[in-house]
């Protein structure tokens, strides 16, 4: 039991990070509204930032800006990586939204379920039903 509590206390940020990631992934996989999917993708990506930043923090340390009289700094490398990741995230979001806007102009809806049926009809003589748009990313990890 003690072990469990200790693990809970020292890894609390990881637990929350995992919970956030799962929530983000769930939104992406389960929701059919494209804008909500993108918001979920944002949460998913943002929670990964915590996974990088948490180990770099040193208790009693300060931000890695050099100053007189300070000995311990937190690790700057994860910060740099995450800055890059944030930029990539917003770039993806912008492009995704642009595509969504175009889809709305072309189809009049942004619900993926509705559009998939329309796409199927456009391909009318296709004997195979269109596969589910979302894939199952865990299959090969299990």
């Amino acid at each position, binding site marked *: 039991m003690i072990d469990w509590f200790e693990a809970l206390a020292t890894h609390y940020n990881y637990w929350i990070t995992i919970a956030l990631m799962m929530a983000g992934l769930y939104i992406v996989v389960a929701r059919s509204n494209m804008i909500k999917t993108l918001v979920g993708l944002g949460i998913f990506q943002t929670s990964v930032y915590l996974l990088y930043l948490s180990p770099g923090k040193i208790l009693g340390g300060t931000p890695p*800006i050099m100053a007189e009289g300070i000995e311990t700094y937190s690790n700057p490398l994860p910060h740099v990586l995450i800055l890059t990741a944030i930029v990539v995230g917003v770039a993806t979001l912008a492009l995704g*939204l*642009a595509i969504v*806007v175009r889809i709305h*102009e072309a189809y009049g809806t942004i619900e993926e379920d509705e559009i998939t049926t329309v796409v199927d009809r456009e391909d009318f003589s296709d004997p195979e039903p269109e596969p589910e748009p979302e894939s199952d990313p865990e299959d090969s990890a299990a």
Partner: protein
Amino acid sequence: MILDVILRVAAKLFIPFILMFGLYVQLHGDFGPGGGFQAGVIIAAAVILYAIIFGKDAATRAVPEWAVRVMIPMGVLIYAGVGVWSMLMQGEYLNYNVLLHAGEKIGTYDAVHGQHWGVFLVEIGVLVTVTGTMLGIFYMFAGRGRPDD
């Protein structure tokens, strides 16, 4: 309408300060938090605020679309150009150590100053592209207009 006036006056008061803050973040990035990316976003945000309150047309008069179209590649070009410069100075790509010669002698470099220059130029490149792109994307969304459905 009164609300409108308040907004306009407040915006006119604020926007110069936001721009100043953006420049501060850009130039102070060596000593405190900040840098080209954050500054670019802040400056773009100032223009976007202007566009929201005074209309997109007013904003495009201040920062026209063609300027945005030039800014986006220009920043990357500045950044990549620093790399080419360092290559011409016999260093590896993006090696700022070799950007400046120390004194007359060829083959010796002023590494620390070179680094300062390199970082400064590179951050400007980041600023230009980020500001341009954020504005460009905003203009595109704002200019698309609601489709009639």
